[in-house]
């Protein structure tokens, strides 16, 4: 039945009437920084998405439809994000936005996506905004553990295991550092003796590290990006400052940072991974440092087949893991997916999605927050060794508990494509 003006009636029309969906394709898109300062690293995420979708398409697609993934470059500039999102939604007519990256960038378009009723799935950022307020952003879903949750788990762990440590915070001066700090302070408020912030783009962190050193800090909690992990390590060497380091998941990609540090100085740092030995961090999906993990094996196969010449990195693993979740959601939306349909499907069954994530998603009708927890681990020889079981919690004063859903033990299906019944 057709509504006024010949527009398809929401929710009821046949698949052909849904924006972005045809008999044999479904078009989705996202904004990523492919150029500019934020491009290193982040620009690899969409290639992970693409590789996995290609893999799915090569295996017949979902409900007979191939997934087309359109990536648009916003150079990490919100005004550009707004432009390319207009283009994705109004001109490319995507069915859903999947994996749009960045807090300031995505903030610029989240209201637009919701007012246009475009599913805004799995934002690539751990800000609380993506899922804590379902009422005002009914179409937006987070994916990775939010920074506050991560901060809480880190805070509690430190409070329990290093109760005497003088703690210093090293924070990126945006919501990442802010949310992280909020979480950490729930448990560590009186242990924190110094808080230093850096602005991304400013590569001189010596003044901040010197201040931490001056405050006699012996544990630094870093909510920073990988390049700043490298910078802090180097600067600390220069200042002969040797505390224990605890980097949040974002900054600790041991593969990347290790290879960065490996060659920093002939003689000074022979092996970067060993420089990182003893560094604490968190994990919520398996990464390339565990090549025997069945998920990583799957990603490696997918990447070898559809990725190209470059090597598999954790950014690409992140992209593929996200893509896997989207395919699950699409399966759940049934053979005739609609925009409302997929949102409903995630709300209904998202909490049960099996996948690489170590902890389950928090998706319900009331919360669109992503992965609910992670585990604390320590880097040894460039690998992460778990120190705790997977811990889960939620924003606010939800207590931290051990995860007993078994999400961490999920194994990928035989064909590497999630089953429809999920």
């Amino acid at each position, binding site marked *: 039945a057709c509504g006024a003006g010949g527009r398809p009636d929401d929710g009821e029309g046949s698949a052909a009437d849904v924006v972005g969906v045809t008999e044999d394709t479904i078009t989705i898109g996202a904004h990523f920084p492919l150029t500019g300062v934020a491009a290193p690293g982040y620009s690899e995420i969409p290639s992970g998405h693409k590789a996995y979708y290609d893999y799915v398409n090569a295996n017949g697609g979902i409900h007979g439809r191939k997934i087309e993934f359109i990536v648009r470059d916003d150079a990490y500039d919100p005004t550009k994000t707004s432009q390319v999102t207009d283009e994705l939604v109004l001109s490319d007519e995507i069915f859903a936005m999947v994996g749009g990256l960045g807090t300031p960038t995505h903030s610029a378009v989240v209201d637009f996506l919701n007012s246009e009723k475009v599913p805004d799935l799995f934002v690539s950022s751990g800000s609380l905004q993506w899922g804590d307020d379902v009422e005002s952003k009914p179409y937006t879903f987070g994916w990775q553990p939010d920074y506050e949750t991560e901060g809480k788990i880190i805070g509690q762990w430190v409070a329990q295991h290093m109760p005497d440590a003088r703690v210093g915070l090293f924070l990126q001066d945006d919501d990442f550092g802010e949310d992280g700090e909020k979480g950490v302070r729930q448990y560590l408020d009186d242990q924190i003796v110094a808080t230093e912030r850096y602005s991304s783009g400013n590569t001189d962190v010596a003044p901040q590290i010197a201040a931490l050193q001056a405050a006699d800090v012996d544990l630094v909690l870093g909510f920073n990006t990988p390049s700043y992990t490298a910078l802090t390590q180097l600067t600390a060497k220069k200042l002969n400052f040797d505390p224990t380091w605890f980097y949040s998941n974002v900054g600790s990609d041991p593969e990347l940072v290790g290879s960065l540090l*490996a060659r920093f100085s002939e003689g000074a740092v022979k092996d970067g991974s060993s420089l990182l030995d003893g560094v604490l961090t968190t994990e919520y999906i398996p990464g390339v440092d565990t090549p025997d993990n069945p998920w990583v094996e799957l990603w490696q196969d997918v990447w070898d087949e559809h990725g190209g010449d470059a090597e598999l990195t954790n950014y690409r693993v992140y992209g593929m893991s996200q893509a896997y979740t989207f395919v699950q959601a699409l399966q759940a939306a049934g053979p005739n997916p609609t925009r409302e349909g997929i949102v409903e499907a995630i709300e209904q069954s998202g909490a049960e999605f099996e996948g690489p994530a170590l902890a389950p998603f928090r998706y319900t009708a009331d919360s669109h927050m992503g992965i609910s927890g992670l585990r604390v681990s320590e880097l040894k020889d460039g690998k992460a060794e778990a120190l705790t079981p997977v811990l889960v919690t939620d924003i606010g004063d939800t207590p931290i508990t051990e995860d007993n859903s078994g999400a961490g033990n999920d194994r990928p299906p035989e064909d590497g494509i999630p089953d429809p019944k999920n």
Partner: protein
Amino acid sequence: MQQFLTTALNGLTQGMIFAAFALALVLIWRSTRIVNFAQAPMAMITVYIALVIIDAGYSYWLGFAAALLSGLLLGAVVERVAVRPVEDKPHINAVILTLGLFIVIHALAAVIFGSRYRSFPAPFGLSGFQLGDMNIALTGFGVFSILAVLAVMLLLVLLFRFTNVGLMMRASAFNQEVARLLGVRVTRMLTQGWALAAMVGSLSGLLIAGGNLVHPAYMDSVVVFGFVAAVLGGLDSPIGAVVGGLILGISLSFVSGYIGSEVVALAALVILMVVLLVRPGGLFSHAPARRV
């Protein structure tokens, strides 16, 4: 005390890096009256050349030399091909041209070398010195940077003050027609100026890259502060460039350490404005020109 010392020493090394960049700007300004906004990406691409060589297993110093040489060459080529046609045009055209070049080289580097972080080695140690209880926040490489910059400054002062080539380069920059009438090979001077400046730029690129992460945009943050340092010192003066760099480096280090790194750029603006309000031509400018 320790923090103060560390912050100051860090400002010193940082300032020397600004100074290196500013010196290249001064050199090009003196020899062509153009501010080369493309200097950062030009340097960046030569540093990538060094990286390729070092990655292939050759020594750091071979890469170092290759970067300087390719800088020399790149500067000459850029001047010949791109800058030459706009030399006699309004000044803003050269500005825009170098901005265009900036974008082009950037994009090329991203396509050729990939837009990911790579680490660049440093030839000397990256651990700070220790003096009893005190940590001296200077590394072997830091000392090398300081010496290199001072040497370049000295050479430039000598070049401009005492040699005929320096004189001819300046004459060509100010008045091509008169210089040519006096037998100066103006085109060669301009090319030479760009080549030398690009080489100094490469040096600054190498100094920044040493023991750091490189990616196509790794030099961009220096563009602003390097330029501000050059302007602060008075674009015409190599000594001014170094002094400007030091003032900026040290004060920004303190601002960043004691106030917050968000206001670093604001502090640079304030310092620049205060200096320019007192001396509109920078610290080392000559007396204001006779106007009538």
